[in-house]
């Protein structure tokens, strides 16, 4: 099971918000986001843009490494952090 950490600014977009930390079975990053979208419809559109690709200012780290490839494989004990980039004013 992958352990996923979600940012506050993402979970608060959903009326029945997901926990900030949850565990999910997923073989790839794409699978993981699809599972999140099943549980919280609309999550896919918040994390990905047409392409499909991860949104420009969303950073995803798998086991500490920044990953942009939605097909990236997740190990059975993967730790995934989804973190908005530093931006704004």
């Amino acid at each position: 099971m992958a352990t996923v950490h979600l940012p506050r600014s993402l979970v608060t977009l959903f009326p029945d918000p997901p926990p900030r930390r949850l565990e999910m079975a997923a073989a790839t990053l794409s699978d993981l986001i699809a599972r999140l979208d099943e549980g919280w419809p609309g999550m896919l559109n918040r994390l990905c843009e047409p392409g499909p690709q991860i949104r420009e200012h969303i950073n995803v780290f798998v086991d500490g490494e920044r990953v942009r490839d939605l097909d990236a494989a997740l190990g059975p004990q993967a730790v995934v952090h989804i973190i908005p980039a530093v931006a704004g004013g």
Partner: protein
Amino acid sequence: MSDRVELLVGTKKGAFILESDAARRDWAVRGPFCETWPIHHLVRAGSDGTLYAAGGNAWYGPSVWRSEDDGATWSQSSTGLTYGDDEPKITTIWNLTPSNGTLYAGVEPAGLFRSDDRGQTWSHVAGLREHPSTPEWQPGNGGLCLHSIVPHPTDADRMWVGISAVGAFETTDGGTTWETRNRGVRADFVPGDPPEFGQCVHKMGLHPAHPDVLYQQNHCGVYRSDDGGRQWTEITPGLPSQFGFPMAIHPHDPSTIYVIPLNGDDKGRHMIDGHTQVWRSRDRGESWQSLDNGLPKRDAYLGVLREAMATDPLQPTGIYFGTSTGQVFGSADEGESWQLIADFLPPIWSVETSIANS
């Protein structure tokens, strides 16, 4: 029963609702809503007064927010708000306009979407971007945004839209095909005669009692069309500047319009000489009067953006505008006198009104 007046305010950092009674003298502020997302437009629609807010977030993209409990809780969706995987990505939503049970959204880069299920899913009104001019659309300083959606009040197949730095279009077949509607409108930023498209409309609208009469504040003047946009007549003379963003039509008098001239497109785009004025015409733009009673007359370098002026339907009509520096000014007497009704809000992008009985 008494009227409760609301100002629905979209800002760079969230949506707000300002509330008053029919006297429109004392106002309370609620918000920020929508998780402080940049909100270009906040409206109420439908018989139940559902709130819809539209915008786009730098991290999470464009979305339309909905609240069915007066702002207590919100959901959001952008399902279907896409041109496709190989097409330009939509960055934000500039305008929401309800019409005949449908909610329309104008987006950036310019396009029109519709929702027939209360904002849960969206479909592209593809005919507009199939217009042969589309490959030549170029963004202006404000982006390539579709900001004005003007449905015909009785003919569901007719609609006009306004796109910055592109101009006005009309459909008469429900959005399948569109024609440019820019004849008579200047485009000082391109050499030669005015082109068929490329004019920079800033805000366009009509009064439902006279649906063939359109008005627009343009980058290059203020205009009226008496034939549904086929030919425009400039009505700038009498105004201190051709440049401004918003334009509002009096809800009970189709001949009365309001604009807020700014000092110029290359001069800062603020109040002329720091003197805050709204200008009103009671004769369809043939003559203009300055309205500044109660507004700051010096050192007020305020800007007002395209969606940030609105009227209410009470008698006498109220008129309101929000500034790029977070002030909201209001008049409860058609612009004869004004008061500052909110200050210190984030930069204001839109103001709408709503009336409820309480």
